[in-house]
């Protein structure tokens, strides 16, 4: 999946000058990726839509300050990520900030589930019930792990792009991605193991 459309297809000068047609073209190009980021972060379509709208309102307001050092999509991801994190902080103020160190409870999960469920048929792995479990597993991640996983593995950003969006080091991105993936694997293994057992009983 391509993470970023080339910024150069848009005229930054026109965008900075408030050109409505250019802005509309930018919204058209990027709204879907911002919506997908938002829904994975907050899990609720109405909240995701609010974040989407706020992201582009802020983008319109602050485009004049965009220096073009990062790509336009990376900059938009940063705006959207800040909106999503602010929303989550308002909702759950006890959540840690993204730039704080990952707490010790977020170390590598020792694999408990040693079951090879890769052989399950694709329609079982991606059934509508399985998709609910995939979404629920993401929601159970802490905010700081979830945002890294969503940017890297769902939105398809590179480690460097993710580090730029979150203002983290590349090492921190890799560490958090590793922890997120191991946790998700553990949760999914529990679910798919049950499907394997059910399959054998039929």
């Amino acid at each position, binding site marked *: 999946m391509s993470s970023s459309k080339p910024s150069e297809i848009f005229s930054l000068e026109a965008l900075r000058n408030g050109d409505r047609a250019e802005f509309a073209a930018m919204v058209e190009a990027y709204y879907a990726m911002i919506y997908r980021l938002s829904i994975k972060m907050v899990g609720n379509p109405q909240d995701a839509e609010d974040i989407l709208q706020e992201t582009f*309102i802020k983008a319109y307001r602050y485009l004049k300050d965009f220096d073009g050092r990062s790509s336009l999509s990376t900059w938009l991801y940063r705006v959207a990520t800040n909106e999503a994190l602010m929303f989550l902080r308002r909702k759950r103020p006890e959540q840690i900030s993204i730039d704080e160190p990952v707490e010790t409870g977020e170390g590598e999960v020792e694999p408990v589930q*040693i079951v090879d469920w890769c052989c399950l048929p694709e329609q079982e792995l991606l059934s509508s019930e399985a998709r609910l479990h*995939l979404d629920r597993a993401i929601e159970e991640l802490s905010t700081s792990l979830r945002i890294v996983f969503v940017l890297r593995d769902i939105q398809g950003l590179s480690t460097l792009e993710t580090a730029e969006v979150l203002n983290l080091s590349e090492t921190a991105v890799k560490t958090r991605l590793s922890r997120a993936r*191991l946790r998700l694997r553990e949760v999914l293994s529990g679910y798919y193991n049950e499907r394997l057992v059910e399959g054998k009983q039929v």
Partner: protein
Amino acid sequence: MKDHQDCHHLLGSLSGFLDGELESDLCAQIERHLAECPDCTIVVDTLQKTVSLYHTASEEDTVPEGVRQRLFRRLEIDDLLDKGL
């Protein structure tokens, strides 16, 4: 697991191993370990499958109807909707 110490030691590197971003020495060490540790092989395979399932599922995600129209309206650019954008 054949050698629990190795398994535990390498656990934090498996994600980087999948992304092909490890130093060649560490990569070779993991490959040697996997050749003799079926449990870690399962962990690597299911870890890779976890990543690919999320990737596939998200590619099929669609934006609900109406979201785009409401966004353009909120931004007061709805007069530019579907005008050759």
